[in-house]
């Protein structure tokens, strides 16, 4: 069991409080409206949903009220209270908002209120027909024996934390929903991030196998150096072969090779044709193969490929 806070009754002409401790307050009926109803509902949240409709005719419509409900034997006990007014009143009495731990309602003390308790000079608190009521003392004039009730020895169960009724901008239910969504979202992000990290494992394995087979190629510099050595050779030799291939395609039964020379810079072929028409065909085909063409005579063509 945790340490319980000091409890005080809150009533209009209460004395000023001087303390820095946290305090549980018990509101007297001066600060709330109370209704007791017998309803066929099971859960408190259902009762809370319909609570405002019960108070429609009793509350000042210009003020904002909060509602609280708990089960009292076979009845539902409904409370309507204006938290702004309560906080403002308590601050006037020297109690800071952050010092208020829980708010209880005097109705919960009903079983201890058969005998009145005194609230200051002019009022008293007493249970009348099962409802804790504020009475002027003059009504109880013949009852001189006000009881001394030790509030701190009484355990109260139906309290409201001030955060749930006033300070928190976001209600608990929404807090739970938003937090759950955010945690799920965060979880999804973490799972996705971890899966992403695992996604390159197969590539890593492939690289490891390759490096095991070619340990000399583990250095990036060595690889680059070998590539620099062989890539130009590969490129140039392929170009030589492609060019020779393209020149060979220009030859037919009506066009034959007269001469072909290849050196480091170019390939030159002289092709002789049977007619001017075939020459033009060879020129077109050579152009299509991106070769440099020069007609040397009506039947002789010079084809050049630059390496």
């Amino acid at each position, binding site marked *: 069991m945790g340490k319980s806070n000091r409890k005080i009754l809150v009533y209009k002409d209460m004395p000023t409080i001087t303390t820095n401790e946290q305090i549980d307050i018990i509101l007297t009926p001066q600060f709330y409206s109370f209704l007791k109803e017998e309803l066929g509902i099971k859960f408190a949240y259902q009762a809370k949903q319909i609570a405002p409709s019960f108070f429609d005719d009793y509350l000042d419509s210009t003020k904002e009220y909060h509602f609280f409900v708990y089960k009292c034997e076979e009845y539902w006990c409904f409370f309507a209270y204006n938290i702004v007014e309560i906080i403002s009143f308590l601050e006037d009495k020297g109690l800071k908002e*952050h010092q208020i731990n829980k708010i209880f309602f005097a109705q919960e003390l009903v079983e201890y209120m058969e005998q009145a308790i005194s609230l200051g000079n002019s009022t008293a608190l007493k249970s009348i027909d099962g409802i804790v009521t504020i009475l002027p003392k003059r009504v109880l004039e013949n009852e001189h024996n006000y009881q001394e009730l030790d509030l701190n020895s009484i355990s109260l169960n139906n309290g409201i934390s001030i*955060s749930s009724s006033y*300070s928190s901008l976001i209600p608990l239910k929404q807090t739970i929903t938003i937090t759950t969504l955010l945690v799920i979202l965060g979880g999804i992000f973490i799972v996705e991030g971890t899966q992403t990290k695992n996604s390159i494992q197969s590539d890593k394995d492939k*690289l490891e196998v390759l*490096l095991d087979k070619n340990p000399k190629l583990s250095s990036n510099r060595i690889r680059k150096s070998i*590539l620099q050595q*062989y890539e130009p050779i590969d490129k140039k030799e392929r170009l030589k*072969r492609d060019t020779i291939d393209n020149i060979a395609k220009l030859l037919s039964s009506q066009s034959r*090779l007269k001469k072909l020379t290849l050196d480091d810079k170019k390939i030159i072929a002289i092709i002789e044709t049977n007619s001017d028409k075939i020459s033009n065909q060879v020129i077109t085909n050579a152009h299509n193969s991106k070769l440099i063409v020069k007609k040397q005579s009506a039947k002789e063509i010079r084809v050049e490929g630059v390496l």
Partner: protein
Amino acid sequence: MNLMVIKRFRNELIILVATLFALFAFFYKLSAKNFIEEQKSQIVSSISEISRVNELKKVWKSKSISKKADTFKTIVGRNKLKSFKKYSGKVMVSYKNLNFKELNRVIKNMMNNPFRVVKLKISELSKGSYSMELICKW
């Protein structure tokens, strides 16, 4: 006092912590994605480099190429081989009176094997008869 403030704004604090957690997770995912993309690109580049190096070495550093250079000696009749000289890493061949078929055969042999063609000179001597000079390296 601080405890009071925490208690008062408990709901907002819970949402703030959950938001921070979601944000942290989001940035973790982003950084993991960036890190992996960078790693993947490095790995893929390394794999492609190694494969390319192996491929190039296999072609242009083939040990059997020297033997293949000998085929230039026997690919046409002995009477058409004017000269054949083979040094380490180099072959110099010269042919005479090649017909079109034989010329094609020699050129195919040159093109289908990984020789580095240094010089090629084909001249028509008479219709359908060619001379050829070829220098290849490896």
